């Protein structure tokens, strides 16, 4: 696989270097040709800033950006051959949607028939053929968003940056379009970075997910890996719905037993052989750890520890139960309709294979189940 986009030690400061807002911190990232990358992270974590540096609208405070073999961080946007769908759509208000989409193609000196064919294809894909001759100010937000997305996707650029391209669309249309867009991108071998707040969208469309927080790239891996082996506490709790349950704990070892002392005097015990020697050593060298377990993995079992039901929601296809556990709240998911009364006691069991252990101080993952992180 050839590397299409490479960010090396990239920093972004708004204002003076080392003095202004440090929006992006030392990002290193290689994107392969033909890959779709989802950029996931909470609001204000630096996603848009990263895209804008790659596109050339913000200068790169430090580091190098290489695209298709060219170092581009000093080039003006026109020389970068990057397409972008903007968070705020940014359509040209004085021309029709059709002309908006065709602008870049005309600048690239394509023939009129080619332009027409490409515009037709992308607008059919995004269901906007009926608004092509309208002006951007006279169409709805969702239509503007698709027009802006069409304007980016119609191009044959080295890189497509899509900043929350479907945020305004209703769920049905989103689900339909994300499949089509993925197909469109893959069919043409385009490389794309997609910013989204929708984890389902990220999982469905992306080959790899980049999780950002506080300007720092937390983890960059496949959706499966992010789910099964989150690199740190942030990724663990940020990705996954409902979020991972976490409990601070102190680890100790009495020869053939491993003890996790949770808050509220709860002591979870496991046979030492449930964990490999490396994992035991990693945990015991820290003592103060954070235990994480996904809601789907929490089991109800007679031998489990007691928990008091606090909330019970039937979502139409699954039940989310929240219960008081170890001085905190634990959420578990049942795949059928489960009727447990509020205030009643249930017993929950955490399988050692489902435990994610994080260093309490740094938040770094130590182990995932039996595997060392």
């Amino acid at each position, binding site marked *: 696989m050839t590397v299409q986009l490479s960010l090396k030690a990239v920093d972004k400061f708004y204002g003076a270097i080392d003095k202004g807002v440090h929006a992006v911190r030392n990002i290193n990232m290689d994107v392969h040709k033909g890959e779709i990358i989802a950029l996931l992270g909470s609001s204000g974590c630096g996603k848009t800033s990263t895209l804008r540096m790659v*596109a*050339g*609208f913000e200068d790169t405070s430090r580091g190098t950006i290489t695209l298709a073999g060219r170092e581009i961080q000093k080039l*003006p*946007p*026109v020389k*970068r051959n*990057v*397409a*972008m769908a*903007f968070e*705020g759509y*940014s*359509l*040209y*208000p*004085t021309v*029709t949607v059709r002309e908006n989409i065709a*602008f*870049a193609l005309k*600048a*690239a000196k394509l023939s009129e028939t080619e332009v027409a064919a490409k515009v037709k294809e992308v607008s059919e894909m995004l269901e906007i053929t009926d608004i092509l001759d309208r*002006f951007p*100010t*006279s169409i709805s937000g969702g239509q503007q968003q698709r027009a*802006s997305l069409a*304007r980016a996707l119609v*191009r044959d650029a080295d890189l497509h940056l899509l900043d929350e391209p479907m945020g305004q669309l209703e769920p049905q249309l989103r689900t339909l379009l994300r499949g089509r867009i993925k197909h469109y991108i893959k069919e043409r071998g385009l490389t794309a970075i997609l910013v989204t707040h929708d984890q389902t969208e990220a999982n469905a469309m992306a080959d790899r997910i980049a999780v950002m927080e506080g300007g720092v790239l937390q983890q960059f891996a496949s959706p499966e890996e992010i789910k099964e082996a989150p690199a740190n506490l942030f990724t663990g709790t940020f990705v996954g719905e409902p979020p991972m349950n976490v409990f601070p704990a102190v680890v100790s070892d009495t020869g053939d037993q491993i003890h996790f002392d949770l808050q509220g005097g709860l002591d979870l015990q496991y046979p030492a052989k449930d964990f490999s020697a490396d994992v035991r050593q990693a945990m015991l060298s820290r003592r103060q750890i954070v235990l994480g377990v996904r809601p789907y993995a929490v089991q109800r079992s007679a031998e489990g520890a007691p928990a008091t039901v606090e909330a019970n929601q039937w979502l139409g296809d699954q039940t989310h139960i929240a219960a008081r556990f170890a001085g905190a709240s634990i959420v578990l998911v049942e795949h059928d309709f489960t009727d447990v009364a509020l205030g009643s006691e249930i017993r929950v069991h955490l399988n050692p294979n489902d435990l994610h252990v994080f260093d309490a101080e740094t938040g770094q993952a130590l182990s995932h189940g039996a595997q060392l992180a």
Partner: protein
Amino acid sequence: MESVNPIERALRGIAITLVILFFMFPIFWIILMSFQTNETILRMPPSMVFTPTLENYMALITGKLETSAGILEIAFMKNLFNSFFLSTASVAIGLVLGVPAAYAFARLKFKGSEDIAFTLLSFRFAPPLLVLLPLTIYFQQLGLANTYGGLIWVYQLIVLPLILWIVRGYFEDIPADVEYAYRIAGHSWGATFRKIALPLAGPGIAAAALLAFIFAWNNFVFALVLASADKQPVTVGALAFVTASGIQYGQIAAGIVLSIAPTFALALYAQRYLVEGLSLGAVKG
């Protein structure tokens, strides 16, 4: 239409009539005066009944002013032309210099850009007399005194700050991303300025140009000091009607009517642009 009760409507009508009367009466009176002779103007008590005469206009157009002391040559038509030429040329140059500068101030935020922009605006605050004395001396030494070029140059003190500040506001209102979207689509910085920024700020530029034209047209003191009769605009030329044998009210009135007519027409026309300019980015086409 919302329904209002008749009393409210009547009161509103009266208020509007009063305001219009207050502002329009002087203009109305001047127009009346311009069709009268000095005698009918000055009679006591004043009356609105008179036989209209085109004498005043004729005198202005032929350039021959008949006074009790004999026939006086006046250069009113020349002055009118000067006003036109000076204002148009000043605004044209002001636009060529001011619009790109306004764009730079709106888009490139560099250290001190705000201070520079404000300094330029502050030329508008300074009393013209402050700069006139040194300017007169410089102009004489440079050979610019009493030339169109020199006058147009000083007129930039009036039009440039105005254009710069108004147009900068319009450029700032254009979302930067609209321009970025165009640039990233394979267009240079210059092409983006011409194809995106200029058209979107068009109504604002038109409004600024019209305002600047009116301000330049109405200027008095620069031309009074820096130009002699053949380069003077109407504002200064009207002084010629204050003659040794009396003040020619009729001709002054006719002169005023002729000299405000272009700005008046422009203002009426600009109204549309100002409204359009204020709703920048609204539905088009």
